[in-house]
């Protein structure tokens, strides 16, 4: 999975390897009522315990899922090597994301000449010239929206194709964390530059990312810091850094915000670059979170990083994104999760090293506990990217995919507010349920989720390689296996459990359609499987 010819290598080798434990079906989960709480242990899972099901869990949470062959490769590698490949992604070659990938000056400041001409026209009440200027602005805005749409599609494509799934998953995490909306800032290149920033710091030090974000033009514009004046500081950025980006409510005072806003005065941008507007910066003495002095933006960030609440806040957010939505209302469960978060945060506080934190979490017995597996509702982006990566459906029309993602509640680069996406159950309602199911129909068959049949994408989904990979990865799914074993394997791969609620219906479907899983009925079987509630989970 770690090169562009996804899965080819793995497929070739697949038949000759018999990974330990991969063939065994994990015992079905007991009913929820009265289930034991998950282990709070951060000890690494023993190598012998790492099966196909664990590898599947890992690649869904630390990435966007994978094909049977990819999951089998991780199983064969074992936990340590799999984590190395996922976390040390700099060592994996990927297409660079250079600043030149998109046009920087679709939106740009007016030139001196333009300013002069416009001023003259205003003075002379030259309506034609003024109208011409207005028209030009509108043209630029339109062009910029087009570029934004292309950037959206580019990122979605990158998530589908990348050999560094965890890096892109973290970019998505930071985008939701430092949520900035194009709708407000209306400069696609600034959104792109911010996306590059998240990629650069994806698994790096949170402290460095926080220092970078107060210099990020998109963020500075989004939270009005470019309008902050020494005489009249704008508190928006200082407030959100404390409340939403680093500390959480209750861990600062209104005075800290006021003083923090003073520290951030003068932090602005010119065109596409950070600019420190020195005359506009308040150099006076400030008192922020117990730190004193002529604190500037970096000093403000340092004062925040010294707060114990900071590590807890970021750890909790990472835990919720990668491990489990929290809290659940189930006390023993929450107690275990709380302990894990505390243990992780205690070490994170020392260095703010995201990679180290994730390595501990993603290798822990807690992370692989049965109660955490298959209990996360896929975000719309996870659903789309995961389907293309895992089922190997044709990628199809990107416009339809970003459109569907929006209708499922997640439009990348357009988070609903500075709080980002709420996630979890907020993704799901009667309307989005059909969009989710019908998006899968589109990917599997080419039938558009909205609109006319004439527009259908008729590229066939070839199930041959999926069927072969499934047989290789889970030997009991091969052609010699019983239909029950085949369906067990298919359900394990697609739904994460051999016993989904509607299993009897699937058994009947296979019985009615020739009695065995085959190229003839796998496509239709997948239509049913992807419409099941378990498919929305990972």
């Amino acid at each position, binding site marked *: 999975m770690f090169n562009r010819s996804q899965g080819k290598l793995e497929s070739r080798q697949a038949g000759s390897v018999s990974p330990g434990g991969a063939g065994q079906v994990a015992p079905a989960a007991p009913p929820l009522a009265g289930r034991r709480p998950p282990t709070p242990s951060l000890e690494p899972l023993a190598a012998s315990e790492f099966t196909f099901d664990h590898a599947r869990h890992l690649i869904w949470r630390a990435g966007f899922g994978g094909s049977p062959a990819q999951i089998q490769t991780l199983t064969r590698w074992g936990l340590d090597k799999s984590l190395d490949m996922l976390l040390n992604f700099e060592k994996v070659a990927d297409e660079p994301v250079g600043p030149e990938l998109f046009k920087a000056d679709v939106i740009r400041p007016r030139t001196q000449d333009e300013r002069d001409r416009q001023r003259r026209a205003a003075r002379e009440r030259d309506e034609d010239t003024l109208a011409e200027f207005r028209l030009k602005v509108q043209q630029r805005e339109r062009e910029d929206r087009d570029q934004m749409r292309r950037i959206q599609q580019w990122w979605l494509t990158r998530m589908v194709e990348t050999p560094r799934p965890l890096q892109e998953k973290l970019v998505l995490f930071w985008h939701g964390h430092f949520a900035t909306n194009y709708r407000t800032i209306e400069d696609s290149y600034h959104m792109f530059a911010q996306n590059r920033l998240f990629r650069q710091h994806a698994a790096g030090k949170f402290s460095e990312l926080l220092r970078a974000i107060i210099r990020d033009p998109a963020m500075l514009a989004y939270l009005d810091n470019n309008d902050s004046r020494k005489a009249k500081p704008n508190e928006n950025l200082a407030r959100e850094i404390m409340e939403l980006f680093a500390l959480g409510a209750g861990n600062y005072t209104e005075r800290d915000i006021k003083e923090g806003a003073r520290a951030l005065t003068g932090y602005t941008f010119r065109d596409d670059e950070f600019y420190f507007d020195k005359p506009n910066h308040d150099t006076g003495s400030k008192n922020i979170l117990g730190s004193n002095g002529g604190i500037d933006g970096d000093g403000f960030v340092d004062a925040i990083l010294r707060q114990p609440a900071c590590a807890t806040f970021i750890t909790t957010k990472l835990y919720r994104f990668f491990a489990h939505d929290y809290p659940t*209302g189930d006390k023993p469960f929450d107690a275990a999760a709380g302990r894990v978060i505390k243990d992780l945060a205690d070490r994170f506080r020392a260095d703010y090293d995201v990679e180290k934190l994730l390595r501990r979490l993603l290798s822990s017995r807690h992370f692989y506990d049965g109660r955490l597996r298959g209990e996360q509702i896929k975000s719309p982006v996870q659903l789309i990217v995961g389907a293309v990566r895992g089922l190997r459906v044709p990628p199809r029309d990107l416009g339809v995919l970003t459109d569907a993602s929006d209708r499922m509640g997640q439009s990348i680069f357009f988070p609903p507010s500075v709080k980002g996406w709420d996630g979890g159950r907020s993704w799901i309602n*009667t309307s*989005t349920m059909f969009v989710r199911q019908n998006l899968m129909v589109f990917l599997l068959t080419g039938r558009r989720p909205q609109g006319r049949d004439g527009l259908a994408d008729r590229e066939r989904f070839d199930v041959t390689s999926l069927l072969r990979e499934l047989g290789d990865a889970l030997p009991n799914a091969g052609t010699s296996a019983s239909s029950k074993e085949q369906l067990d394997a298919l359900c394990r791969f697609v739904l994460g459990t051999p016993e989904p609620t509607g299993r009897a219906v699937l058994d009947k479907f296979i019985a009615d359609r020739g009695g065995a899983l085959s190229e003839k009925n796998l496509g*239709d079987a997948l239509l049913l499987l992807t419409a099941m509630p*378990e498919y929305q989970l990972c």
Partner: protein
Amino acid sequence: MASGEWRVASDWSRYLIGWWMFASSTMFDAQTEAFTRRQFLGGSLTLAAASMAVPAFLQRSALGLPQAGPGMTSIPGVPEERIIVVLQLSGGNDGLNTVIPLGQSAYYKARPSIAIAEAKALRLGGEAVGLHPAMTGFKELYDEGLLSIVQGVGYPNPNRSHFKSMDIWHTADTTATGDGWLGRYFDSECCGFGAGESGQAPGTGASRDIKALVQPGIAIGRDAPLAMRGRKVQPIAFESADLFRWTGSLEDKTLASYYEALTKADAGAAGEVVGDANSAFLGRTALDAQVSSDLIRKAVAAKPRMTYPGGPLAQQLQMVASMIHANLRTRVYYVSLGGFDTHAGQGGENGRHAQLVGQFSSAIGAFYKDLKAQGNDARVLTMVFSEFGRRVGQNGSAGTDHGTAAPMFLIGPMVKPGAANGHPSLKDLDDGDLRFTVDFRSVYASVLSGWMKADADAILEGRYQPAPVLKKV
């Protein structure tokens, strides 16, 4: 894209697909809904049997449904199940050629080739304004006392970008940020399938009462408009009700029975699971979606009760009328018509703009005839808006550029009929644009507090004096 972003004015109508109203002639009545869930899970079950076979939450909701039809009232003459229909005119409707300022020379001077001659404008009793001659539908509504014209509606520091200004109208916020105003209405009322029905955490089963069964808003169109998007409640959006369903069975008909069986299996399990696993939550939502889809598709497939004029908007409104007739528990419907961005050759008495205003006026006229025949007209308030009006003076291409204030229309027996406030001045202009005299949010406030009996201040996140456009109802 968030509907606010790259909304092309005419997209919604352009993509509106064919009509299927003759597909089924099953009549649908108010009683049907009460039985749909049970029918879905096995129509032959009696309630007693259902108490064992049907999950508790479903049984409760089946029992909890009201038995009365649309006429259900507690105070005589005051309908309880009030509905608002929003019509969005996308592209910036030219207000000055819609509601004509009679006898004002400044109007004719500014628009030498596109102004509507005074003699041609449709007179409204003794009002100082007339209607575009193509708007005979609205003239009839006026004569019946069903039309209110609010003039000079806008907001401070008008934005002339379609996208930005539309977002401002959708969010009721001049910075164009935040959730939609109708979305916030649903969130604050905490109703709708989206959250009240499925989206709630454990223990909400018991509170699945009638109110929780009020459906989220329904938007006819490709995208859910930003206006209807809330935090908790998301609207249902479809171009054609036939697509508000699992499309896998359109791909292969034989899959339908398996899909149905899967949905039932999930529902069965959902009732048994103690606690609140995500899979059970998803199963419940899938079932709700299925039931909701069946209701909506049956509703719009019902036999048409009357003939509507041609055009996409009339089709949308006919669908809405069918859903109201079927007594869906939806309080907000959203329809739209595009093409109002008339920069060139917009015409006067005839031509492009005439065709557009004629279209929405006759479509709404037919809609209210239909509602009256159903006995539902008193339940339905329709509000018409556009993201901005156009400049007072015509441009060099016999069209008009993006402007500011424009009229809004409110329709229904609950409105105070007539052109309430005066036409904005054509002499005291702001750089060639009309100055607004009514903030659009005071019209929203009136709709929310006066009609929907909701807390307008909380929803609009500010205090706006409700525009006096509704009777005391």
